[in-house]
Each structure stands twice: as C-alpha cells, then as structure tokens.
C-alpha cells in the first residue's frame, strides 16, 4: 500500500492535534460541570502580570478561630499530584479538615476529598478598634489545590485586584473561590465571589 503523501500527513497530524485540544477543553468543561462545587476562602496574593495576560492571583487561605488547633497537615514534600485534603462544610463555605496521603484516608476525615497540599501556619489576627491591645494568635490554613489565579478582562481584573489588595479591618472584603472537585479529585476553578459579586468562568 502506498503511504500517504506529505500534505495528507501534515493535515492529518494537524487535525489530530486540533481535535486533541478541543477534546481537552470539552473534557475539562464537563469535569468542571459534573464536579462537586465547594466554596473556599481566599485572599489577594499578587498584582496582575502583563506577561501572563490579565489575571488576578489569589491564595486559598483561612484564619481559624482563636485557640482552634491546626488539623493534620500534609507531609513534607507532598505535592498537588500525590497529596489529598479533606474538606468539610462550615456554613456557606468549606474548610480543610485535615490532610492525608490517600483519598480513602481523606474521606474518613470529611465528606469531600480533593488533591492538594494543606499547610497550617501560626499568625496574628487583624485587630479592630476597641479590641484588646494584645494581638490574638491564630492559626492560618493555606490550601494549595493547583489553582491560584483567574483570568479576566482587564477592567474586571483591575477592579477585583483593588478589592483584594485593600486591607481594612473595619470592612473586610469577603472573597471566596468557587471550586469544582471532580471524580478524579482534581480541583477546577468555577469562579470567584469578591465583595458579594460572583464572577463565573464560561464560554463567553
């Protein structure tokens, strides 16, 4: 049998590659839609980078109530690919209940298991006028689920960035990441809620 000519081979490979890219988008979109949506507290992290397009970088973090102990953290060297974090509902949000090395172990801690790394660091709670002079020591949960940014239009990104970078103890801006936890345990960003305004990722 005569092998296909170079033009046919080039078009065939290009078609397969393009279909692969479309398949990736469709698969990720489907996994995002089918996953369990959780709402995780976040804070601003870094301004937009011109080289990487318009995005807002954030960090999934939450201060625990004063005197609340740290849950079990991820082992040293754990990565988003091989670590698991258990999430439990806490009002409208989900909070980390502990880390584990397997999905089964994470599910024994809480109903939702997601691939990621959990770190707990000591810090100080923001003081408000009238509070005791002594700053309160609190534990802060840092969650690395492999998602740390949302790409937006420039105007949207700038508004969101200003809100996230503002620090006012009297008017703390509530910011949450909406994350879909798929059957594979992978976290996929669905959108963010900053100052009560929800921004979803969609095709448009």
């Amino acid at each position, binding site marked *: 049998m005569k092998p296909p000519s170079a033009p046919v081979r080039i078009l065939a490979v290009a*078609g397969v590659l393009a279909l692969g890219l479309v398949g990736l988008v469709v698969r990720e979109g489907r996994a995002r839609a089918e996953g369990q949506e959780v709402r995780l507290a976040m804070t601003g992290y870094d301004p937009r980078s011109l080289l990487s397009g318009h995005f807002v970088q954030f960090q999934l973090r939450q201060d625990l109530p004063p005197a609340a102990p740290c849950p079990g953290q991820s082992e040293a*060297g754990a990565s988003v690919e091989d670590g698991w974090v258990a999430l439990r509902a806490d009002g409208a949000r989900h909070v980390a209940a502990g880390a584990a090395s397997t999905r089964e172990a994470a599910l024994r801690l809480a109903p939702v298991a997601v691939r990621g790394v959990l770190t707990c660091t000591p810090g100080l709670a923001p003081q408000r006028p009238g509070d005791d002079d002594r700053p309160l020591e609190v534990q802060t949960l840092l969650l690395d689920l492999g998602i740390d940014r949302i790409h937006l239009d420039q105007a949207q990104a700038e508004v969101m960035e200003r809100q996230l970078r503002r620090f006012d103890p009297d008017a703390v801006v509530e910011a949450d990441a909406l994350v879909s936890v798929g059957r594979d345990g992978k976290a996929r960003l669905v959108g963010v809620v900053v100052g009560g305004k929800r921004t979803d990722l969609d095709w448009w």
Partner: protein
Amino acid sequence: MTSYRRRLERDLDAWIDRGLVAAANREEILATASEGRRIDAATVLGIIGGLLAGVAVIAFVAANWSAIPRIGRFGTVLAAFLGAAGGAAWAASRKRDVTRQVLLCIAALEFAAAIGLTGQIFDIAGDAQAALRMAGLAAVALAAAGASPWAGAVGLLLIALGDFEGPWMSGGRSDWPGWLVIAAPLAGAAALRWRSAPLAHAAGLCLVLTVLTLGEAARSNAERAFLGAAAVLALAATGLRLARDRFEAPAGVLYGWCVWGALIWFGAAGFGEQMRGVLHSVVWLGVSAGVVVLGRHDRSSAITAAGVIGLFVAGATLLFNLGVGLLTSAMVFGLLAAASLVIAFIIRRGKTA
C-alpha cells in the same frame, strides 16, 4: 558548497598549470561540482515578510483580545494553528521546501502557544512541564509528517525546556531521567537521516545537556554520572567521526558537539570530592592535548577550540589542586612540556621515516 567550488577552481588552475589536467576539461569538471541549494534574497525577504505579517496579526488580535469572547479566542488560536499547518501542506504539495519548513515551524510554535492560551482562556490548571513536553511531541509529530528537520529542532528544544522546567537539579523533580535521554539521540539520528545541520546542532546541544536531566542518578552521584556521560559522548564521537563520509555535514556537527560534551563532563567530574586531585587534572590536560591534535588532524576549528579551552581550564585546576605551590607547579608543567615535546618528536620521526 560555495567554498568547495572556489577551492576546486583554485586547485584546478594549479593542476592545469602543472599539466595534471587538460585546460579544456576545466569548465566540464566545474559543471559537475554541485553548488548546493542557496536561499536567495527574494526568498529571505518573503520569509521575513511572512513572519512580520504574522506578528502584525498577533498584535492586532492581542489589542482586541479582551473584547473577544472566550470561545472566539479559542477559535482564533485553533484557526491560526490550522492555517499554518494548511499552508505547510500546500507548500509540500508545490514542492516549496523552505516555505514548508518555515510554516511547519510556525505551526509547531503556534500549537505550543495554543496549549498555554487554552489553559489561560478556560482557566485550566496544568503543569508547565507537561505542557512544554506535549508541545514538543506535537512539533515532533508535525516534523515527522512533513519530513521537516527545522520543526524537529523546535520540538526537541520544547522537550528540553520541559525537562529544565522547575527545580530540575534539586530534589523537587521526579527521580526519572528527563525526556532528552531518548529525544536527543533520536533527533541526532533524524539529523543524519535528513542530512540536516540545524537539527544536528540542536541534537548535539541537547546531547551535551542531557546529563543534567538524569534526575536522581545525577543528584546522588554526580561525579559518576558526569564521567559516564563523558565516556558515552566520547564513544558517540568516535562513531560519528567514522560516519562522516557517509552522513556528511550533520555527522561532523554531531561529532563536534560530542567532543565538546565529553571534555566538559570529564572536566566537571573532577570538581567533586571523590575525583578532585592532581591525577584528574593531569589526565584532563592530556585528553585536551589529544583533542587539539585531533582537531588539527581533522581540520576542525571547533574541535581544536574545545581542546584549547580544555587545556586552559585543566591547567587552572591543576594549579589549584597543587595548592599553587610555584615550585611544584613549575615541576609538573615542566614534566608535561617535556612529555609533549618527546611525543611530538616521536610523531615527526615516524612521519619522516
């Protein structure tokens, strides 16, 4: 090939003067000497014009990027890639080799950009290393489909970038070796098959750098890994030197890179605790001197340069290892000089005998 023709013209004139060749045969002999394919000014301007047009389109799209819906952006990215690949297919059907190669390179780079932009457009979190490697594989697939060594070089460099993405020499990366361990030798073989010097340069550079992607093997025992790499590259250089007649310029290019790599990694092995010492420096000096002789014999300035630089660095490490005791240094260098002179004398006597 132009330099070959000029040399042939000079040699022919000398042979005619000495009566070795009939003057009437001069033009006929010169006509048999191939000129090789040269890219003319019009083609170069055409390539530059095409690239500038591409940059203009990219800038225009970038200026309006925010105004385009996500699905539109994705469609634009895909259309740009398929347009370049389609153009390459058209050029292949018209036997326009340079256009085919350029468009396949553009298609390969556009697909690499498409992976990153798709992740950005739809906020798909991913591993940068995996993205670079996938882009490299796509470029290699396009290169294989279009028999394009230029696109192959792009693919190899993307795979190399993937290997070096992240903390590759620390404990943060996988224990497995990088993809270059397989990709670089395959690219070298492809360069020989397609008689491509550009791909041979890319493959040669990656062959030298492969040792840095060996993962845990290189981290836990760097000296042995470097010494092993030097031995493998020296063996490859030997084979490629013998294959130069069959595979022409690409074999020569790879041969040069392998000699450089063998010398570099042999020298690097001596910077560790286990092998550091006068003995390593003296052997390094000897090997470098041998490479200089080899370079002169093969009339290769690149190989001679490798040997000369090796001599300088090996000499410096020898001084360092001797503890910069001037008297001891003078004695060692004097012995080395005497050994060199004796060898040179023996070689000269062998030639005149």
